[in-house]
């Protein structure tokens, strides 16, 4: 191969097929169009940030990706699944357990607060069909230590834990089965700044060690800047700008993005 021809090859990242492809995503609630024709893709090991103000449709996109609702239109390819939206309810359930992990802003959405923390992780494996108690314990322990949770408290219920710890339990639950895709919905909003920094640190470690593919939704540009490789800016249910994180945040092109960046920084 000559030097000239190798220069013509696309960068290494693009030679790998996309892990996830969403196209033409639409969600209509009555007269309200929450999401209007959103398309994007995610490559293996990549972190994609979605920013936008409240009501821009970013959380709806995440709910659709987590198969909590069916969209009005659109396709969703993830790993070996051709179109997750076309699957039956049971198949979607199985795909959700196996291939998608999610961390919510509010721990009570993702956790059973009265059950033990390790039990929350065990539940996910039990749903996937694991029936050996010892394996449940081992995976819970491994997963909690990966999310840097103090193991001495692994059997405490999340309701007695601090907010940061609860997010770590959620994270451990999300990564227990090593999903193809990790969704983060405002994972650090509502935590104080020092705890926020430590949770973000954990996410970065996880990203560098396990090369987890993540989609992170946040209105906090600091979080996006720390974690995301690429970013989508959403407004009124549409993507108004997309690009590398640094590029978009340093040199915003769309007036709305400019406004957002100036307001935040």
């Amino acid at each position: 191969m000559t030097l000239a021809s190798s220069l013509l090859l696309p960068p290494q990242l693009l030679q790998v097929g996309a892990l996830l492809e969403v196209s033409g995503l639409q969600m209509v609630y009555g007269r309200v169009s929450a999401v209007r024709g959103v398309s994007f893709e995610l490559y293996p090991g990549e972190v994609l940030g979605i920013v936008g103000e409240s009501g821009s449709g970013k959380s709806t996109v995440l709910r659709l990706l987590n198969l909590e609702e069916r969209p009005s239109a659109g396709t969703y390819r993830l790993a070996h699944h051709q179109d997750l939206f076309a699957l039956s309810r049971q198949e979607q359930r199985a795909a959700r357990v196996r291939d998608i992990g999610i961390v919510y802003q509010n721990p009570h959405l993702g956790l059973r607060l009265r059950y033990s923390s390790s039990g929350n992780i065990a539940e996910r494996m039990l749903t996937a069909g694991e029936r050996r108690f010892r394996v449940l314990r081992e995976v819970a322990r491994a997963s909690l230590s990966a999310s840097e949770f103090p193991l001495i408290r692994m059997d405490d219920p999340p309701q007695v834990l601090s907010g940061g710890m609860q997010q770590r339990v959620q994270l451990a639950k999300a990564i227990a089965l090593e999903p193809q895709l990790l969704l983060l919905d405002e994972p650090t909003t509502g935590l104080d700044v020092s705890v926020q920094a430590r949770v973000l640190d954990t996410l970065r470690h996880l990203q560098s060690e396990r090369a987890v593919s993540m989609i992170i939704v946040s209105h906090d540009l600091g979080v996006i800047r720390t974690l995301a490789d690429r970013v989508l800016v959403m407004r009124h249910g549409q993507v108004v700008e997309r690009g590398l994180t640094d590029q978009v945040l340093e040199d915003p092109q769309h007036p709305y993005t400019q406004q957002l960046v100036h307001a935040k920084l």
Partner: protein
Amino acid sequence: MKLADLTHARTDYNYAFLDEHAKREVRRALLKAVAVPGYQVPYASREVPMARGWGTGGLQVTLSIIGESSRLKVIDQGADDSVNAANLRRFVARMTGVQTTTDALEATVIQSRHRIPEEELQTGQVLVLQVPLPDPFSYVEPSRSLARELHADSDYALLWLRLYEDLTLHGEVLTGADHPVLVQGHYVMAPSPIPRYDLAALHQAHHLTLLSAGREKRLYAVPPYTDVLPLAFDDVPFQIERQQGWVCQQSGAQHGFMNEVPQEDGRSYVLSDTGYLEKLLRQKRGEPAIIGARRKSQQDQPGSAL
């Protein structure tokens, strides 16, 4: 022709108390329940002259399936002579005129609360169990509609999670009576609050088991020769009640499920199944008694093989 010729003669009560429509409705629900083992079939649950929670579900099933050739046995916690059992038996006998018995082998219909007779029931016998809470999810999932979805998907992670929590926090499973069982590989059902010792009597049984909750308006069934397996982790064996070394004070038997009887100088034990105990005592006195085969179980006595 007079009008009186075209109508039934007036009677105070219909045969077996319930009107024919009510009985037919229960029978149709029963057919569905037998066709889908372990599935909870809703039914109307009529008024009977007894408070909900005192076995009205079991009573309605008994009244719907009983006929002139039936022989009825009613037990409560294994005893034929407890108040609940005696009242139910007297009521059904009065409303139908059927023969009653305390012998589990002679009975064609056995209505029971909390126990299954010690002697192995045979083909053609029907066991009717009174159920307080028909849904095993009622302990863990407050939403009925979500619980129904979970049943449909055969997603029982929450019930397993309960076992996990018990093992993690207490080192053993604390379900006590009403330990959830998996029926023929799909539905998990609440076996009514029978001791864990009795669960083996449901697995691949010769007899038909009908379970009915009057207050909750649900009935379900375990047809003969159906797999009924208690939920238990692969590496933590299922345990029945610990009763090693207990000896029946009256009969001297060392097998079977015992009740604890507090005494001034400690405790003594007596067989919980009074019909069976009666036969053992008759045999002990040298009187004729036909004692049925003890039903198959993993252990002869609760806890002896652990």
